Protein backbone atom coordinates (compact mmCIF):
# COMPACT_ATOMS: atom_id res chain seq x y z
CA UNK A 1 0.00 0.00 0.00
CA UNK A 2 1.12 3.58 -0.66
CA UNK A 3 3.06 4.84 2.41
CA UNK A 4 1.16 8.15 2.69
CA UNK A 5 -2.17 6.39 2.45
CA UNK A 6 -1.10 3.90 5.07
CA UNK A 7 -0.21 6.81 7.36
CA UNK A 8 -3.50 8.54 6.56
CA UNK A 9 -5.48 5.40 7.39
CA UNK A 10 -3.63 4.92 10.67
CA UNK A 11 -4.21 8.57 11.63
CA UNK A 12 -7.91 8.27 10.87
CA UNK A 13 -8.07 5.10 12.97
CA UNK A 14 -6.21 6.75 15.86
CA UNK A 15 -8.51 9.77 15.82
CA UNK A 16 -11.68 7.73 15.55
CA UNK A 17 -10.64 5.32 18.29
CA UNK A 18 -9.75 8.28 20.55
CA UNK A 19 -13.22 9.76 20.36
CA UNK A 20 -15.40 6.65 20.43
CA UNK A 21 -15.75 3.99 23.09
CA UNK A 22 -16.24 0.60 21.51
CA UNK A 23 -14.38 -2.54 22.49
CA UNK A 24 -15.04 -4.74 19.43
CA UNK A 25 -13.44 -2.41 16.93
CA UNK A 26 -10.33 -2.12 19.09
CA UNK A 27 -9.97 -5.90 19.27
CA UNK A 28 -10.63 -6.30 15.55
CA UNK A 29 -8.04 -3.63 14.72
CA UNK A 30 -5.45 -5.26 16.97
CA UNK A 31 -6.11 -8.68 15.44
CA UNK A 32 -5.95 -7.35 11.86
CA UNK A 33 -2.69 -5.45 12.43
CA UNK A 34 -1.13 -8.51 14.10
CA UNK A 35 -2.04 -10.65 11.08
CA UNK A 36 -0.73 -7.93 8.78
CA UNK A 37 2.55 -7.78 10.69
CA UNK A 38 2.82 -11.59 10.62
CA UNK A 39 2.45 -11.63 6.84
CA UNK A 40 5.30 -9.10 6.71
CA UNK A 41 7.49 -11.54 8.69
CA UNK A 42 8.17 -9.41 11.74
CA UNK A 43 10.65 -10.80 14.24
CA UNK A 44 9.00 -12.58 17.22
CA UNK A 45 11.12 -10.53 19.62
CA UNK A 46 9.54 -7.37 18.30
CA UNK A 47 6.09 -8.76 19.07
CA UNK A 48 7.10 -9.36 22.65
CA UNK A 49 8.41 -5.83 22.83
CA UNK A 50 5.21 -4.40 21.34
CA UNK A 51 3.16 -6.23 23.99
CA UNK A 52 5.36 -5.35 26.96
CA UNK A 53 6.24 -1.74 26.24
CA UNK A 54 2.77 -0.21 26.61
CA UNK A 55 1.73 -2.62 29.38
CA UNK A 56 2.55 -0.29 32.25
CA UNK A 57 0.68 2.80 31.05
CA UNK A 58 -2.21 0.55 29.93
CA UNK A 59 -2.48 -1.04 33.38
CA UNK A 60 -2.31 2.40 35.04
CA UNK A 61 -5.26 3.61 32.96
CA UNK A 62 -7.18 0.37 33.56
CA UNK A 63 -6.74 0.48 37.34
CA UNK A 64 -7.70 4.13 37.49
CA UNK A 65 -10.98 3.61 35.68
CA UNK A 66 -11.90 0.21 37.10
CA UNK A 67 -11.00 0.74 40.77
CA UNK A 68 -10.54 4.40 41.56
CA UNK A 69 -13.11 6.21 39.44
CA UNK A 70 -16.58 6.85 40.88
CA UNK A 71 -18.34 4.68 38.24
CA UNK A 72 -16.10 1.52 38.42
CA UNK A 73 -16.78 1.12 34.72
CA UNK A 74 -15.03 -2.13 33.75
CA UNK A 75 -16.16 -1.99 30.13
CA UNK A 76 -14.67 1.47 29.66
CA UNK A 77 -11.49 0.34 31.43
CA UNK A 78 -11.06 -2.43 28.85
CA UNK A 79 -11.80 0.02 26.04
CA UNK A 80 -8.99 2.31 27.21
CA UNK A 81 -6.66 -0.62 27.83
CA UNK A 82 -7.16 -1.97 24.30
CA UNK A 83 -7.05 1.55 22.80
CA UNK A 84 -3.40 1.91 23.79
CA UNK A 85 -2.62 -1.35 22.00
CA UNK A 86 -4.48 -0.12 18.90
CA UNK A 87 -2.13 2.89 18.79
CA UNK A 88 0.93 0.76 19.26
CA UNK A 89 0.11 -1.95 16.72
CA UNK A 90 -1.22 0.34 14.01
CA UNK A 91 1.87 2.51 14.50
CA UNK A 92 4.09 -0.55 14.17
CA UNK A 93 2.21 -1.52 10.99
CA UNK A 94 3.74 1.59 9.42
CA UNK A 95 7.15 1.84 10.99
CA UNK A 96 7.98 -1.86 10.58
CA UNK A 97 6.99 -2.01 6.92
CA UNK A 98 7.96 1.41 5.56
CA UNK A 99 11.34 3.12 5.70
CA UNK A 100 11.51 6.81 6.66
CA UNK A 101 12.91 7.55 3.20
CA UNK A 102 9.99 5.88 1.40
CA UNK A 103 7.49 7.66 3.60
CA UNK A 104 9.19 11.02 3.02
CA UNK A 105 9.26 10.54 -0.74
CA UNK A 106 5.64 9.54 -0.73
CA UNK A 107 4.58 12.50 1.43
CA UNK A 108 6.37 14.84 -0.97
CA UNK A 109 5.15 13.26 -4.22
CA UNK A 110 1.67 12.04 -3.32
CA UNK A 111 0.50 14.49 -0.65
CA UNK A 112 2.55 17.47 -1.94
CA UNK A 113 4.16 18.26 1.38
CA UNK A 114 6.70 21.10 0.75
CA UNK A 115 10.03 19.40 0.15
CA UNK A 116 11.86 21.49 2.76
CA UNK A 117 9.65 20.04 5.49
CA UNK A 118 9.89 16.52 4.11
CA UNK A 119 13.66 16.45 3.67
CA UNK A 120 14.43 18.74 6.59
CA UNK A 121 12.76 16.32 8.97
CA UNK A 122 14.33 13.32 7.24
CA UNK A 123 17.78 14.91 7.59
CA UNK A 124 17.19 15.30 11.33
CA UNK A 125 15.88 11.74 11.64
CA UNK A 126 19.01 10.38 9.98
CA UNK A 127 21.09 12.05 12.67
CA UNK A 128 19.37 10.16 15.51
CA UNK A 129 22.22 7.71 16.17
CA UNK A 130 24.61 10.65 16.36
CA UNK A 131 22.24 12.55 18.67
CA UNK A 132 22.17 9.60 21.05
CA UNK A 133 25.95 9.37 21.02
CA UNK A 134 26.33 13.10 21.60
CA UNK A 135 24.00 13.17 24.60
CA UNK A 136 26.05 10.33 26.11
CA UNK A 137 29.31 12.13 25.30
CA UNK A 138 28.15 15.38 26.89
CA UNK A 139 27.21 13.56 30.09
CA UNK A 140 30.45 11.59 30.12
CA UNK A 141 32.47 14.76 29.53
CA UNK A 142 30.66 16.34 32.47
CA UNK A 143 31.40 13.38 34.70
CA UNK A 144 35.09 13.57 33.87
CA UNK A 145 35.08 17.01 35.40
CA UNK A 146 33.06 15.75 38.36
CA UNK A 147 29.83 17.34 37.13
CA UNK A 148 26.72 15.19 36.99
CA UNK A 149 24.30 16.34 34.28
CA UNK A 150 20.84 15.00 35.08
CA UNK A 151 17.95 15.04 32.64
CA UNK A 152 16.55 18.18 34.22
CA UNK A 153 19.85 20.05 33.99
CA UNK A 154 19.62 23.16 31.73
CA UNK A 155 23.31 22.74 30.86
CA UNK A 156 22.70 19.33 29.28
CA UNK A 157 19.94 20.72 27.04
CA UNK A 158 22.00 23.82 26.27
CA UNK A 159 25.01 21.83 25.14
CA UNK A 160 22.86 19.52 23.06
CA UNK A 161 21.15 22.50 21.41
CA UNK A 162 24.56 23.96 20.52
CA UNK A 163 25.28 20.76 18.61
CA UNK A 164 21.87 20.95 16.93
CA UNK A 165 22.59 24.48 15.72
CA UNK A 166 25.90 23.41 14.18
CA UNK A 167 24.37 20.31 12.59
CA UNK A 168 21.42 22.18 11.13
CA UNK A 169 23.79 24.69 9.51
CA UNK A 170 26.01 21.96 8.15
CA UNK A 171 23.15 19.79 6.87
CA UNK A 172 21.43 22.73 5.18
CA UNK A 173 24.72 23.74 3.54
CA UNK A 174 25.38 20.18 2.47
CA UNK A 175 21.94 19.88 0.89
CA UNK A 176 22.27 23.25 -0.84
CA UNK A 177 25.72 22.41 -2.18
CA UNK A 178 24.22 19.27 -3.72
CA UNK A 179 21.81 21.43 -5.67
CA UNK A 180 18.83 21.53 -3.33
CA UNK A 181 16.88 24.80 -3.60
CA UNK A 182 13.90 25.23 -1.34
CA UNK A 183 10.50 26.11 -2.82
CA UNK A 184 11.58 25.02 -6.29
CA UNK A 185 9.86 22.39 -8.40
CA UNK A 186 11.67 19.07 -8.21
CA UNK A 187 11.85 16.04 -10.42
CA UNK A 188 12.13 12.62 -8.86
CA UNK A 189 14.05 9.53 -9.88
CA UNK A 190 12.18 7.25 -7.50
CA UNK A 191 8.49 7.56 -8.27
CA UNK A 192 6.11 6.42 -5.55
CA UNK A 193 3.00 5.06 -7.22
CA UNK A 194 -0.47 5.99 -6.08
CA UNK A 195 -2.82 3.48 -7.66
CA UNK A 196 -6.56 2.87 -7.76
CA UNK A 197 -5.88 -0.09 -5.50
CA UNK A 198 -4.56 2.27 -2.77
CA UNK A 199 -7.70 4.39 -3.01
CA UNK A 200 -9.87 1.25 -2.84
CA UNK A 201 -8.08 -0.14 0.22
CA UNK A 202 -8.32 3.21 2.01
CA UNK A 203 -12.01 3.76 1.29
CA UNK A 204 -13.09 0.18 1.95
CA UNK A 205 -11.13 0.07 5.23
CA UNK A 206 -12.69 3.30 6.44
CA UNK A 207 -16.20 2.08 5.60
CA UNK A 208 -15.58 -1.29 7.29
CA UNK A 209 -14.27 0.47 10.40
CA UNK A 210 -17.40 2.64 10.57
CA UNK A 211 -19.68 -0.39 10.27
CA UNK A 212 -17.87 -2.35 12.99
CA UNK A 213 -17.59 0.68 15.26
CA UNK A 214 -21.23 1.61 15.22
CA UNK A 215 -22.85 -1.82 14.83
CA UNK A 216 -21.05 -3.61 17.66
CA UNK A 217 -20.40 -2.58 21.30
Amino acid sequence: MNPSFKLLLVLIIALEVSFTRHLTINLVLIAVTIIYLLTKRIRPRLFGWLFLMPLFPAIAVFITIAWFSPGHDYFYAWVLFSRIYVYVFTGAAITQTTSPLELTRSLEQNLHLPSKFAYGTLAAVNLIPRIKMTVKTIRAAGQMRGIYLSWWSPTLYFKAILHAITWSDQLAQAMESHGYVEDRARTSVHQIALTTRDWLILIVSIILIQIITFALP
Partner: protein
Amino acid sequence: MAKKNNKFHLRDIILLALVGIIFGVIYWAAAFMYNALTIVFTPLKLPMMGNDLTMGLWCMAGPMAGFMLKKPGAPFLGEFLGAAGEALIGDQWGAANLISGAVQGIASELGFTLTGYKHYDWLGAVATTITTTIVTFAWDWFRNGYNKFGFKNVYYFSGRLLSMFFFCGVLVMLIERLLERSHVMKREEFND
Protein backbone atom coordinates in the same frame (compact mmCIF):
# COMPACT_ATOMS: atom_id res chain seq x y z
CA MET B 1 18.32 44.94 14.26
CA ALA B 2 17.64 43.24 10.95
CA LYS B 3 14.06 43.05 9.78
CA LYS B 4 12.05 40.21 11.24
CA ASN B 5 11.83 37.29 8.88
CA ASN B 6 8.89 35.04 9.63
CA LYS B 7 9.52 32.42 6.96
CA PHE B 8 10.91 29.01 7.83
CA HIS B 9 14.03 28.07 5.96
CA LEU B 10 15.54 24.65 5.50
CA ARG B 11 18.00 25.15 8.36
CA ASP B 12 15.22 26.30 10.72
CA ILE B 13 13.22 23.21 9.90
CA ILE B 14 16.19 20.90 10.44
CA LEU B 15 17.01 22.72 13.70
CA LEU B 16 13.45 22.42 15.02
CA ALA B 17 13.24 18.74 14.15
CA LEU B 18 16.64 18.16 15.76
CA VAL B 19 15.67 19.98 18.95
CA GLY B 20 12.44 17.98 19.16
CA ILE B 21 14.33 14.71 18.70
CA ILE B 22 17.09 15.68 21.13
CA PHE B 23 14.51 16.40 23.80
CA GLY B 24 12.91 13.04 22.98
CA VAL B 25 16.26 11.30 23.44
CA ILE B 26 16.84 13.00 26.79
CA TYR B 27 13.35 12.09 28.06
CA TRP B 28 14.10 8.47 27.35
CA ALA B 29 16.65 8.69 30.11
CA ALA B 30 13.69 9.67 32.27
CA ALA B 31 11.26 7.02 31.00
CA PHE B 32 11.50 5.10 34.25
CA MET B 33 10.03 8.17 35.98
CA TYR B 34 6.58 7.45 34.63
CA ASN B 35 6.58 3.92 36.00
CA ALA B 36 8.10 4.92 39.33
CA LEU B 37 5.55 7.70 39.84
CA THR B 38 2.70 5.37 38.91
CA ILE B 39 3.86 2.85 41.49
CA VAL B 40 4.13 5.57 44.15
CA PHE B 41 0.74 7.13 43.43
CA THR B 42 -1.34 3.98 42.92
CA PRO B 43 -1.64 3.23 46.69
CA LEU B 44 -2.73 6.87 47.09
CA LYS B 45 -5.57 6.07 44.66
CA LEU B 46 -4.14 8.41 42.02
CA PRO B 47 -2.58 6.04 39.44
CA MET B 48 -2.69 8.57 36.59
CA MET B 49 -0.59 11.07 38.50
CA GLY B 50 2.56 9.75 36.80
CA ASN B 51 1.07 10.75 33.46
CA ASP B 52 0.29 14.28 34.64
CA LEU B 53 3.53 14.89 36.49
CA THR B 54 5.68 13.84 33.51
CA MET B 55 3.48 15.62 30.93
CA GLY B 56 5.56 18.82 31.14
CA LEU B 57 8.60 16.92 29.86
CA TRP B 58 6.83 15.92 26.65
CA CYS B 59 5.76 19.49 25.95
CA MET B 60 9.15 21.19 26.37
CA ALA B 61 10.22 21.21 22.72
CA GLY B 62 7.35 23.55 21.75
CA PRO B 63 8.07 26.50 24.04
CA MET B 64 11.82 25.93 23.55
CA ALA B 65 11.39 26.28 19.78
CA GLY B 66 9.30 29.41 20.33
CA PHE B 67 11.98 30.99 22.48
CA MET B 68 14.78 30.01 20.11
CA LEU B 69 13.36 31.18 16.78
CA LYS B 70 10.86 33.79 18.03
CA LYS B 71 8.63 33.29 14.98
CA PRO B 72 4.92 32.50 14.77
CA GLY B 73 4.53 28.80 14.07
CA ALA B 74 7.84 27.82 15.66
CA PRO B 75 6.31 26.34 18.85
CA PHE B 76 3.91 24.23 16.81
CA LEU B 77 6.61 23.06 14.39
CA GLY B 78 9.11 22.31 17.15
CA GLU B 79 6.68 20.10 18.99
CA PHE B 80 5.18 18.48 15.89
CA LEU B 81 8.43 17.79 14.01
CA GLY B 82 9.91 16.25 17.14
CA ALA B 83 6.91 13.95 17.41
CA ALA B 84 7.12 13.18 13.68
CA GLY B 85 10.78 12.30 14.05
CA GLU B 86 10.02 9.96 16.91
CA ALA B 87 7.19 8.37 14.92
CA LEU B 88 9.53 7.84 11.95
CA ILE B 89 12.06 5.91 13.99
CA GLY B 90 9.35 3.65 15.34
CA ASP B 91 8.79 5.02 18.79
CA GLN B 92 6.29 2.99 20.81
CA TRP B 93 3.29 5.29 20.37
CA GLY B 94 3.74 5.28 16.61
CA ALA B 95 1.36 7.37 14.59
CA ALA B 96 -0.66 8.36 17.66
CA ASN B 97 2.46 10.34 18.45
CA LEU B 98 1.74 12.57 15.47
CA ILE B 99 -1.69 13.39 16.83
CA SER B 100 -0.47 14.11 20.36
CA GLY B 101 2.39 16.10 18.82
CA ALA B 102 -0.08 18.22 16.87
CA VAL B 103 -2.28 18.77 19.94
CA GLN B 104 0.68 19.70 22.14
CA GLY B 105 2.08 21.89 19.38
CA ILE B 106 -1.17 23.85 19.03
CA ALA B 107 -1.32 24.07 22.83
CA SER B 108 2.13 25.70 23.16
CA GLU B 109 1.57 27.88 20.12
CA LEU B 110 -1.60 29.31 21.69
CA GLY B 111 0.32 30.71 24.64
CA PHE B 112 2.54 32.75 22.32
CA THR B 113 -0.40 33.75 20.14
CA LEU B 114 -2.31 35.10 23.13
CA THR B 115 0.64 37.31 24.04
CA GLY B 116 0.90 38.55 20.43
CA TYR B 117 4.28 36.85 19.75
CA LYS B 118 5.88 39.75 21.61
CA HIS B 119 6.57 38.22 24.99
CA TYR B 120 9.52 35.88 24.86
CA ASP B 121 9.93 36.36 28.60
CA TRP B 122 8.22 35.25 31.80
CA LEU B 123 4.80 36.36 30.61
CA GLY B 124 5.12 34.24 27.47
CA ALA B 125 6.39 31.29 29.50
CA VAL B 126 3.47 31.50 31.93
CA ALA B 127 0.94 31.93 29.09
CA THR B 128 2.24 28.87 27.25
CA THR B 129 2.26 26.90 30.51
CA ILE B 130 -1.40 27.66 31.07
CA THR B 131 -2.59 27.02 27.51
CA THR B 132 -0.60 23.79 27.28
CA THR B 133 -2.08 22.54 30.54
CA ILE B 134 -5.65 23.33 29.53
CA VAL B 135 -5.46 22.01 25.98
CA THR B 136 -3.64 18.76 26.80
CA PHE B 137 -5.98 18.18 29.72
CA ALA B 138 -9.00 18.62 27.45
CA TRP B 139 -7.41 16.13 25.06
CA ASP B 140 -6.87 13.57 27.82
CA TRP B 141 -10.46 14.18 28.90
CA PHE B 142 -11.50 12.22 25.79
CA ARG B 143 -8.53 10.08 25.05
CA ASN B 144 -7.44 8.79 28.44
CA GLY B 145 -10.81 8.70 30.16
CA TYR B 146 -10.28 11.71 32.42
CA ASN B 147 -14.01 12.45 32.08
CA LYS B 148 -14.56 9.49 34.44
CA PHE B 149 -12.33 10.63 37.27
CA GLY B 150 -14.76 13.01 38.97
CA PHE B 151 -13.38 15.13 41.78
CA LYS B 152 -9.87 13.68 41.48
CA ASN B 153 -9.40 15.75 38.35
CA VAL B 154 -8.58 18.65 40.66
CA TYR B 155 -5.44 16.79 41.78
CA TYR B 156 -4.56 15.68 38.26
CA PHE B 157 -5.04 19.15 36.85
CA SER B 158 -2.89 20.77 39.55
CA GLY B 159 -0.24 18.08 39.10
CA ARG B 160 -0.12 18.78 35.38
CA LEU B 161 -0.02 22.55 35.85
CA LEU B 162 2.88 22.14 38.26
CA SER B 163 4.74 19.88 35.83
CA MET B 164 4.15 22.26 32.91
CA PHE B 165 5.31 25.21 34.97
CA PHE B 166 8.50 23.47 36.01
CA PHE B 167 9.50 21.99 32.63
CA CYS B 168 7.95 24.33 30.04
CA GLY B 169 8.33 27.45 32.17
CA VAL B 170 11.29 27.36 34.54
CA LEU B 171 13.53 24.85 32.76
CA VAL B 172 12.93 26.28 29.28
CA MET B 173 13.61 29.80 30.57
CA LEU B 174 16.87 28.64 32.15
CA ILE B 175 18.01 27.03 28.90
CA GLU B 176 16.91 30.12 26.98
CA ARG B 177 18.98 32.30 29.29
CA LEU B 178 22.08 30.18 28.58
CA LEU B 179 21.45 30.45 24.83
CA GLU B 180 20.90 34.18 25.11
CA ARG B 181 24.16 34.71 26.97
CA SER B 182 26.13 32.69 24.42
CA HIS B 183 24.69 34.69 21.46
CA VAL B 184 24.34 31.57 19.35
CA MET B 185 20.84 32.36 18.07
CA LYS B 186 21.80 35.61 16.33
CA ARG B 187 21.81 33.99 12.92
CA GLU B 188 18.85 35.88 11.53
CA GLU B 189 21.01 38.51 9.75
CA PHE B 190 22.74 35.85 7.72
CA ASN B 191 19.55 34.49 6.18
CA ASP B 192 18.56 35.84 2.76
